[in-house]
């Protein structure tokens, strides 16, 4: 079990099912539970962004999520068949702004970029694809780190 995929409509009611998808991947892969929260958060942010801003009015998109475990880390990709949009093109919020000036929106993508080691956007055919990777540092028992 190194890779799992699921496809859901762009409906906020799908959020609990997506969180369960991450949690099931985590327990099946026997990964540290605390790290699951990073991926749950990233998935919520990216999914909700597509739900709220990605679909032309009155339409639903298909959103495909995959999780893949490799030797170097964990990669999650979120793909949708909506109009071309690169969420990484959004300007980051000004985190030095005062309480009154701090923007209310735009935190989600910023958080994802902060929490992940690599985030990439690609337009693949008719789909937007956002790929997020968190590297895992592992020390094997018989080879201690220098």
């Amino acid at each position, binding site marked *: 079990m190194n890779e799992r995929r699921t496809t859901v409509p762009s409906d906020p009611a799908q959020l609990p099912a997506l969180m369960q998808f991450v949690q099931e991947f985590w327990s099946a892969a026997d990964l540290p539970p605390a790290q699951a929260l990073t991926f749950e*958060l990233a998935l919520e942010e990216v999914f909700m962004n597509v739900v709220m801003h990605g679909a032309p009015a009155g339409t639903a998109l298909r959103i495909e999520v995959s999780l893949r475990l490799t030797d170097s880390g964990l990669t999650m990709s979120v793909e949708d068949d909506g109009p071309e949009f690169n969420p990484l093109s959004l300007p980051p*919020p000004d985190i030095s702004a005062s309480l009154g000036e701090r923007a*209310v929106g735009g935190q989600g993508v910023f*958080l994802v970029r902060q*929490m992940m080691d690599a985030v990439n956007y690609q337009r693949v055919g008719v789909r937007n694809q956002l790929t997020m990777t968190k590297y895992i540092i592992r020390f094997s028992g018989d080879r201690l780190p220098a």
Partner: protein
Amino acid sequence: MNIRFETLALTTVVIPEGRLDFGAAAGFQRHVEEVLAGAGTAPAAVIIDCNALDYVSSAGLRVFLLATRAAQRAGISFALCALTPAVREVFDLSGFSRIISVHADRATAVAQAPQTPA
């Protein structure tokens, strides 16, 4: 998400439990707005005790930002306390821990709350 409330003199403590995600944010916002409005008289201080809050997303951060502003307008002291490590990370990465008062534990937050009406 479950939400509990406790009243200590002029301070109302709100205790959200579980996950403050997109699905829970609107309900939590309504409860916090009601607490800030007060039943009859507004509280002097509102403390959100986050010791049982496992998860917060940007939808939850938005509620905390709006509540902090609303409290400031109403002259009510507003603070968070006892953040779990995962929630603390979200507050630190977003910079929200610099614009919203965050205390290590409830005792510290209560000690700093004003003892006279707003």
